């Protein structure tokens, strides 16, 4: 780099002057560092002497300095990377590099010459010492500028239950401005107090703090107190345990409800198209699951187009996939209705068989075109990840699917209730001949209704492609569940489908902890079979003469 060729002649001189001006400053700062190091050096070097107990005392002394410069040394110590050089008894950090060890100075971090392993003594640590060190590190980082570091430090002390950390925590709580971190620090302090020899009142207060936290860690800490010989704490611990267990039960319930609603939303999505074709039109569409599958494969195709042509817009692929899937599945549905179902009017059992045949054809068609293996369908960014409410972890894809299912449901309800088309559909359902006499083109309404139900199954496929394997068998796994939901909810009633999907989902998840996943499913099936005996027309049955037709 030939700067001089272009720069004025005076530049080198200028640079030199600047360097000269900086030199004292640099000297000053390194002197200051050297001064601090000079104070810390004996403490660090002392780590190499004496028993585990002595080392522990030295760690505490280092922690007491509150200087962040000792952090690398302590970290190296826990990792077993801290050595004593036999020649001068200096403590160094060693990293294995080939046959020898690459040494660095624990305080300044500057590289020293490599030495053979034989010239070094490793400073050994035991678990007790490790815990002390962890707590010491925690104390050192409690005052860090970064809130995340402070939070981690508090958590480290909480886990270690280090009584030594109490003073550091007291000071840190005093100075803490972030309420979340402060709460965590108080909990860490309570955990530490329990392990210390503080008076009973303090410990009871600590138990109270932990009970408020109410998670499994707190539970195990208080259980430990309960099992210890400190009988004066047993009463408080017992009460706290009861409180925590109640809290845990509440969270378990909340978790089951959430998982149940999540499963319910999947069931709702799978069944809602069927609620139109079977529930409203009375057509047993065994190819319904394949409509879901077509929707999922449409998603796959749309995502492929995005991957090759517009990878930056991949996150929007689902927005395009939704209408595409609706159209694909809807058109296939209209085709099935025009080609087969209309000839089988009033012969529901034959319709069942014919549509089953269609489902076999569609499955094999997809298998021949795309192959029998699972296809890769990606999650857009907004659907990955999770967040926490208390002790409940909620993943975004499940949340979106719940929202989506309810949106589809609401849209469908509005379409059936408040549009001209919905009115026609209901008229044809209630009395076909009268509707025809009033000028409604019943064949058109039939085809469109079936197309609507199939299209909705298609967009359900878009959502289900996000959580399930996209394979030719995708549809088959939903068909029985879908029929169960519609039959349980009551044919011809969209609200019944919603209630049935959600209650079956929640019931399934509440049974699972006791019975296991498979048995829970069996129990739900048996329950539905028995339920149908009691109410052959489902939860919300249509009343009146139409029922017998």
């Amino acid at each position, binding site marked *: 780099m030939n700067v001089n060729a272009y720069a004025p002649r005076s530049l080198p001189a200028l640079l030199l002057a600047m360097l000269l001006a900086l030199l004292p400053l640099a000297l000053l700062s390194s002197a200051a560092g050297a001064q601090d190091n000079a104070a810390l050096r004996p403490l660090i070097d002392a780590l190499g002497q004496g028993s585990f107990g002595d080392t522990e005392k030295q760690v505490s002394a280092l922690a007491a300095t509150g200087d962040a410069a000792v952090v690398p040394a302590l970290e190296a110590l826990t990792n077993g990377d801290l050595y004593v050089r036999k020649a001068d008894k200096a403590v160094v950090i060693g990293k294995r590099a080939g046959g020898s060890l690459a040494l660095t100075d624990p305080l300044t971090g500057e590289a020293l010459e490599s030495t053979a392993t034989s010239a070094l003594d490793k400073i050994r640590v035991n678990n007790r010492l490790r815990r002390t060190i962890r707590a010491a590190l925690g104390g050192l980082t409690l005052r860090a500028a970064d809130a995340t570091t402070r939070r981690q430090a508090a958590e480290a002390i909480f886990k270690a239950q280090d009584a030594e950390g109490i003073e550091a925590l007291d000071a840190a709580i005093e100075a803490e401005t972030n309420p979340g971190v402060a709460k965590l620090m108080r909990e860490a302090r309570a955990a530490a107090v329990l392990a210390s020899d503080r008076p009973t009142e303090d410990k009871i207060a600590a138990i109270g703090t932990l009970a408020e936290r109410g998670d499994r860690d707190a539970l195990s800490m208080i259980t430990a107190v309960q099992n210890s010989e400190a009988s004066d704490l047993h009463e408080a611990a017992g009460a706290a345990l009861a409180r925590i267990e109640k809290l845990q039960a509440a969270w378990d319930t909340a978790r089951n409800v959430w998982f149940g609603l999540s499963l319910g939303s999947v069931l709702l999505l799978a069944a809602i198209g069927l609620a139109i074709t079977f529930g409203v039109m009375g057509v*047993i569409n*065994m190819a319904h699951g394949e409509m879901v599958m077509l929707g999922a494969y449409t998603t796959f195709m749309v995502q492929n187009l995005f991957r090759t042509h517009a990878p930056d817009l991949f996150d929007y692929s689902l927005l395009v996939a939704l209408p595409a899937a609706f159209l694909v599945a809807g058109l296939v549905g209209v085709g099935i209705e025009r080609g*087969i179902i209309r*000839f*089988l009017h009033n012969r*529901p*059992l*034959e*319709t*069942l*068989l*014919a549509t*089953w*045949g*269609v*489902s*076999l*054809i569609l*499955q*094999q*068609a997809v*298998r*021949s075109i795309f192959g029998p293996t699972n296809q890769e369908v990606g999650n857009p960014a907004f659907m990955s990840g999770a967040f926490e409410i208390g002790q409940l972890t909620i993943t975004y894809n499940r949340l979106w699917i719940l929202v989506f299912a309810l949106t589809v449901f609401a849209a469908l309800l509005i379409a059936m209730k408040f549009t001209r088309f919905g009115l026609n559909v209901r008229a044809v359902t209630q009395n076909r001949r009268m509707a025809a006499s009033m000028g409604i083109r019943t064949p058109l309404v039939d085809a469109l209704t079936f197309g609507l139900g199939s299209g909705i199954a298609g967009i359900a496929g878009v959502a289900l492609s996000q959580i399930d394997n996209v394979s030719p068998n995708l549809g*088959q796994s939903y068909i*029985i569940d879908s*029929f*169960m939901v519609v*039959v349980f909810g009551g044919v011809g009633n969209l609200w019944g489908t919603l209630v049935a999907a959600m209650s079956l989902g929640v019931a399934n998840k509440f049974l699972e902890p006791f019975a296991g996943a*498979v*048995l829970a*499913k*069996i129990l739900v*099936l*048996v329950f*539905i*079979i*028995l339920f*149908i*005996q*009691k109410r*052959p027309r489902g939860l919300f049955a249509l009343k009146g003469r139409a029922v*017998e037709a």
Partner: protein
Amino acid sequence: MMVRFLAGGLTGTRLAMLALLLAAAVLVPVLNLALPTDHPLHVPTYAVTLMGKYLTYALLALALDLVWGYCGILSLGHAAFFALGGYAMGMYLMRQIGTRGVYGDPVLPDFMVFLNWKELPWYWSGFDAFPFAIVMALAVPGLLAFVFGWFAFRSRVTGVYLSIITQAMTYALLLAFFRNDMGFGGNNGLTDFKDILGYSVQSDATRAGLFAASALALAASLVLAIAITGSKLGKVLIAVRDAESRTRFLGYRVEHYKLFVWTVSAMMAGLAGALYVPQVGIINPGEFAPANSIEAVIWVAVGGRGTLVGPIIGAVLVNFAKSWFTAALPEIWLFALGTLFVAVTLFLPKGILGLAASLRARLPKRKDKTSPADVSAGAPIAPAPALARNQAAE
């Protein structure tokens, strides 16, 4: 009564089918065992086993026709009864393995040793005796059908709803039998059989014997089905099929009739399963798959619903086609089966036999002697026009 039964039930096609079955029961084993392998009329053993398998499917189809063709109950769960019968036979065959299993345990089947079970579960006791296993192969499906039907028919669950809950039933059983804790071998089911009644299941003679047993069982069941459908009870069943409410208002306890024929049909399916398992050498939860039940329905539809003989023909034809397609053109088979479903429901609502009957009716100028029996055998599905009108008004 007896005369009526003979005149009404034993039509030409039925007699021919019975004769065919009895002849096959004798001839096929003879042609397989007595002739040398290079003789042009020799029937190879694999063909004997394959045909034996078809006959058990035909028995299942016959059972299904009894409820669907004559009582209007479309069961989408008959494979469950078939599989239960199969499991009963499988349990007997497992107990016959004795110390020849991989682990050589004299009492416990291999999978139980593998799961570290210490003793035989109580419901496995007795299955070392053949008669007990056969009774169970009939009784367990029969009992399940009785209980299921008792609730379903009493609550007047009919039509599509009944179809859907029968499907749920077989699906629930599928899930249950997949569980290892059930003690039926879980996912793998029961297999690796050695002996039946002291004869090796692999030997030619045993296979020929099983074929003969299947043919005889099918023939006997056909006679039973003809007797049931030809009796007064059979007439009530047809009345239930065509106008259930009206039959009830006439004073018949509809649910009792349905329950009877439903249970008999389930036991037939169980017998079919029991004969099926030793011939194919395995029974696993896959047999409970709802798709299997629906496939059995198409056998009935292809052959001709409500004809008894039709389903036998349909089962053999469809399964022969399946064997051929899955070997020669595996890609095409599901297309062919799917198209068959659609085509039969759209164009052949009465199946092959119905087609034959209507072709015969088209031929004019033959002596006008289509007996009432032929009509009832060939085209009993559509209710009489007056009846249909009244039903629609209900």
